[in-house]
């Protein structure tokens, strides 16, 4: 199993009626790598993640994730693939407000049975992330930092091969940010997951195996001066 975690070739993407956002000749991320992705606001980082997660369709070129050509997956198969193999953490507001912490964490496994099968012990993951005591609480009662750890627990449970985090620390203060990152790394190592981490905060970059600047490998943005 030596297929890279992410392999992009000649990928071009634009939103329905907008300018070209992405034009990426080549991008490879190998398995187990911890990658730090940065770029100015509006440069297309979230868009790229949407392509990798199989949420955005309508691109040209080829997007392979964990050896799977995303274009070959149709509809629900793509959702199932995402649900099973990818963990995703948003910048903030990661949680379904009307579910408890436990329900939020276990939701991917319940939506995708394949993921559910791999899912380990919720309590163990929660313990490692220091939220074990919060499991039965409603998520709206949590602090932002706690919410982000719940989001991490959800993304990590079931040991997804690829963990995508879109500015997961931007709402956290310095201390929380450091601890959050450590926990993320620790857990990725445990499940041998690949980590693609998007952030504006370059001070974090040093902790990663590799730093990627989107503008360096995205030709689309170069023609357009940043606003």
């Amino acid at each position: 199993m030596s297929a890279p975690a992410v392999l992009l070739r000649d990928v071009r993407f634009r939103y329905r009626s907008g300018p070209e956002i992405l034009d990426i000749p080549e991008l490879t991320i190998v398995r187990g790598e911890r990658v730090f992705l940065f770029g100015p606001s509006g440069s297309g980082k979230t868009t790229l993640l949407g392509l990798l997660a199989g949420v955005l369709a309508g691109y040209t070129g080829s997007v392979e994730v964990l050896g799977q050509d995303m274009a070959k997956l149709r509809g629900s198969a793509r959702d199932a693939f995402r649900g099973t193999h990818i963990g995703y953490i948003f910048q903030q507001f990661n949680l379904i407000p009307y579910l408890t912490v436990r329900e939020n964490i276990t939701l991917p496994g319940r939506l995708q049975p394949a993921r559910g099968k791999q899912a380990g012990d919720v309590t163990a993951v929660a313990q490692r992330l220091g939220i074990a005591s919060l499991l039965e609480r409603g998520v709206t009662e949590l602090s932002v930092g706690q919410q982000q750890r719940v989001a991490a627990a959800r993304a990590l449970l079931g040991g997804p091969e690829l963990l995508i985090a879109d500015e997961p620390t931007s709402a956290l203060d310095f201390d929380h940010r450091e601890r959050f990152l450590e926990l993320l790394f620790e857990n990725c190592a445990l499940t041998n997951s690949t980590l693609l981490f998007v952030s504006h905060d370059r001070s974090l970059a040093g902790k990663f195996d590799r730093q990627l600047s989107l503008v360096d490998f995205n030709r689309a943005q170069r023609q357009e001066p940043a606003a």
Partner: protein
Amino acid sequence: MIVLLSLAWKSLRNRLLTTSLTVLSIGLSMALLLGVENVRVGARESFANTISQTDLIVGARGGSLQLLLYSVFRIGQATNNISYESYQHWKNHPAVAWTIPYSLGDSHRGFRVVGTTEDFYQHLRFRRDRRLEFDAGRSPQGVFDVVLGSDVAAALNYKLGDKIVISHGVAAGRGIADNDHADKPFTVSGILKKTATPVDRSLYIQLEGISAVHIDWADGAPPMPGEEVPASKIAKENMKVEQITSFLLRCKTRIATLQLQREINTYKEEAMQAIIPGVTLQELWRTIGYAEDALQVVTIFVILVGLLGMLVSLYTSLNERRREMAILRAIGAGPGKIIALLVLESGLLALAGCVVGVVMIYGLSFAFQPVIEQQFGLYVPVQPPTPAGWLYLGTVLLAGILIGFVPAWKAYRNTLADGLSIRV
């Protein structure tokens, strides 16, 4: 599916206020719809059960509707009477269980006066098996005793022992002085309990009473001065009943009914006809039942408004829920599941609305049944939904589910447009 159902449930619970308001509005319109249906059924039943256990109504030959109208509803008049001998003949027929004779044609201040016998109080049944009961007093014992229907007593404020005068003819409300049987006043001997049938709107005297007030009349004209027979000279034994207007008849067995009807209709001695009340009542209901349809149209609009309210509340909630949808997508819920979630939500709302509606109408009809019966003479049954009621429930549920596709479609479009970028 189970996951989505629990998600839908929890999401609805999370928006408790809008959810309950929506459920309430659907429930209310559902209750209204079912209520109207119940009233409709009640009206039809009350109507069909204006008289019960009567197998045949017999009168002089003529229109069958006319016979029903004057015998049961006290509307219109008979063109011909039948002879007392003929009545006796059928009364004593071996297939006949009982009869109730009616002699019509007089009135009191707009209310019909009915000459009848003790059989009336014994045998008359309405609403399946209810019988006449007295609020006060008892059936007429003497020729000049009168029993009042409850509406008559209430409208004219009569009590036991009051003396009243009946008038010849049934011209509504007009007491033509010439036509008064003023020389022969009647005494109120009894007042019937309310039956919510036309029985309430008549006065009842003995057949002999009818004969008595007409004893000195000749050819429908009042007696000449000097020829009046004073009431004091009249005794029941001396009164001869020569004719009646119609009579109700109960057969000993149901099977005998048709046979007897044929016999009466072909009776050689006198031109008579017998009708089966149920059949004619149905005919009549069909002609006046159009009011039902009008009611129904109104309630269907009420339901539409209720469902529209649900659509609006689900639709407007979507903007607040774009984030939630993006999260669901990110963790592996496809567009199909997003759609299913919203359709389930509206389905649950509609279901809850239906349940609330049924419970409400049960409670309301239970609570208000006596009042409605008292005030409107309408017996509204407390019963599980009628077939039509079930149809409404099913339709509303289905409509609720279908309507769910509108916000579902919108949510689907949102998720496609938003991708994984979260809009607040």
